[in-house]
């Protein structure tokens, strides 16, 4: 990175943090610290909700996802607007009326203390583990591509986040997130513009998009999986997006404290609702645009030779390894194929311009065959990399965009895009730490406190708890490398818990006759059931039919809680509300 990039990166990062600290100065009580004094406007809430959800991995992986698999990932977000409407109608009015600090606080007034504590614990376990990964995941990619020291990167991101979150609380989180989201959108927009400008002079934007379509990258709506059949394992089709996506979004936006806390800080019920609905309205178009940037990047690499594997350090190591000869041969073949493919693309554009449909479909078939050859060569390269180092990470989807940023963007823009990635990482982590601290204080320490204590005391404890979770997240990130396969498990841990948490809230909102003990027992059984569903197919091959996409765990967990709670309620002796 050049000096200009460093200046842009540091200036952007520290200006945003400084602004957040300045706007949040002087928190005197826990209402100010945890709920931002309930003075947030809808646009701050909306941007804050989006910034919480969009972690660094969103901006690193999503363009790479489109580069690799096309645009069908956009369907994953179709459930978001539906969930936002349901939450606005049902949950927000209740949270506001009861004036709660956490979503789980409501569960005690609706059910009992044990159900509240159980749900809060599920949240703390899942979010507490995930907070470390939110720092670790971008840090490992940044350190790989930019050759930064991984430990230093984790400490750098972690210390900054912990500093402003502990100091300013929810207000600092919300105000920094607003600025971070603006920087993120500007950075991504400029990267997209740069890709279009850098297409060859004889290739227009329209032609590039048309070719991307012919190469199967503009598949925004898919009704079945790649094999032509509907498959529960297929995460990205219209049905899984609408059904599974709605349940995931309901759980995340309606019951995850890191999101609930964003709209609880609204100046009024209307501001909270509009903020949530506003973020729901722009989520799908925003994801479409990020994926479209990935497609533009794909087109860019059709005319500019990209590496066979998107990690130049690994490529360099491979060339000098015992498998160097085979690897270099693959790279040569890849380059030759790239030149042939460029020729085919130009023929395709000319054929489309002439309106010759028969020729267009012949050339398209030829181009697709070359695309398959290219994929095969990339797979062979990954096989060689694994042979050389069995522990090597051969998933380079996450690194495609950052490799593009570092190698192809001009000075200054590189710094801005790295600032975008850091901003995204810090915004999600800050909201998580803020929510973890709040839940531990409100549903734990304050709820079980035997003696009367001052607001100042709770404010200090709240700061201490946020600091504690921050240090835990940094330590987890530092040791994440040693967890190996555990990482994947932690990655989907949210989905293992979300369904149960959502089920408990669904019963609370819609099934007035079901009481605390029934839903508490149903929650425990459902949680065991979902974890079994996740573990059993991995341990016993004969149960592989149980292996479904993790998006469905939300629906199954939720349904199990509702059904079991209704059954338990019938079986249990009546208890007073």
């Amino acid at each position, binding site marked *: 990175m050049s000096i200009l990039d460093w200046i842009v990166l540091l200036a952007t990062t520290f200006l945003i943090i400084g602004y957040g600290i300045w706007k949040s100065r002087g928190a005197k009580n826990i209402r100010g610290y945890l709920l931002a004094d309930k003075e947030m406007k809808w646009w701050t809430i909306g941007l804050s909700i989006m910034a919480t959800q969009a972690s660094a991995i969103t901006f690193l992986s999503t363009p790479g996802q489109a580069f690799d698999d096309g645009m069908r990932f956009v369907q994953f977000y179709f459930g978001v607007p539906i969930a936002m409407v349901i939450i606005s109608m049902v949950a927000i009015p209740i949270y506001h009326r009861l004036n709660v600090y956490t979503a789980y606080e409501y569960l005690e007034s609706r059910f009992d203390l044990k159900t509240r504590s159980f749900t809060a614990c599920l949240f703390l376990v899942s979010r507490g583990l995930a907070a470390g990964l939110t720092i670790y995941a971008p840090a490992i990619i940044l350190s790989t591509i930019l050759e930064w020291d991984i430990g230093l990167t984790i400490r750098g991101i972690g210390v900054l986040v912990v500093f402003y979150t502990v100091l300013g609380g929810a207000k600092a989180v919300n105000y920094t997130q607003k600025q971070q989201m603006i920087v993120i959108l500007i950075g991504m927009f400029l990267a997209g513009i740069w890709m279009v400008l850098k297409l060859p002079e004889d290739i227009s934007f329209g032609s590039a998009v048309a070719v991307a379509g012919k190469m199967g990258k503009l598949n925004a709506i898919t009704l079945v999986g790649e094999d032509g059949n509907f498959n529960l394992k297929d995460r990205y089709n219209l049905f899984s997006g609408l059904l599974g996506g709605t349940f995931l979004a309901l759980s995340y936006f309606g019951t995850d404290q890191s999101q609930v806390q964003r709209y609880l800080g609204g100046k009024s019920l209307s501001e909270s609702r509009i903020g949530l609905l506003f973020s729901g309205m722009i989520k*799908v178009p925003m994801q479409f645009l990020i994926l479209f940037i990935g497609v533009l990047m794909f087109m860019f690499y059709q005319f500019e030779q990209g590496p066979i594997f998107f990690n130049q350090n690994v490529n360099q190591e491979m060339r000098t390894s015992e498998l160097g000869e085979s690897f270099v041969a693959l790279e040569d073949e890849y380059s030759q194929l790239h030149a042939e493919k460029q020729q085919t693309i130009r023929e395709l554009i000319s054929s489309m311009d002439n309106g010759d449909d028969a020729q267009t479909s012949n050339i398209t078939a030829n181009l697709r065959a070359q695309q398959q050859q290219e994929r095969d060569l990339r797979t062979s390269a990954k096989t060689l990399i694994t042979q050389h180092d069995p522990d090597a990470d051969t998933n380079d989807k996450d690194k495609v965009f950052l490799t593009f940023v570092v190698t192809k963007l001009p000075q200054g823009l590189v710094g801005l895009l790295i600032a975008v990635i850091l901003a995204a990482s810090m915004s999600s982590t800050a909201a998580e730490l803020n929510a973890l601290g709040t839940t531990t204080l409100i549903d734990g320490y304050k709820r079980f406190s035997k003696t009367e204590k001052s607001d100042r005391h709770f404010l200090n404890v709240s700061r201490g708890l946020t600091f504690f979770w921050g240090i835990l997240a940094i330590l987890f990130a530092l040791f994440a490398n040693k967890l190996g396969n555990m990482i994947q498990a932690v990655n989907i841990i949210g989905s293992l818990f979300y369904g149960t948490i959502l089920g408990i809230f669904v019963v609370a909102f819609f099934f007035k006759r079901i009481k605390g003990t029934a839903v508490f027992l149903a929650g425990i059984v459902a949680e065991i059931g979902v974890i079994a569903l996740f573990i059993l197919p991995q341990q016993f091959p004969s149960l592989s039919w149980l292996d479904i996409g993790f998006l469905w765990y939300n629906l199954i967990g939720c349904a199990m809680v509702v059904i079991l709670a209704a059954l338990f309620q019938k079986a249990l002796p009546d208890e007073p509300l």
Partner: protein
Amino acid sequence: METNQNKEAEDQELRGIMPFLTGWNQFYLIVLGELVLTIILLYAFSRFFA
């Protein structure tokens, strides 16, 4: 009585922020309508460029 008053106050507030809307249901319909329109447009987009 109190519920009606609350509802009225909420509607007033909504009108203050979004003057063209007279109730929350209209807002919800706009959000869901936008989703339906987006899906239709994306479907047309996928088919057009396939």
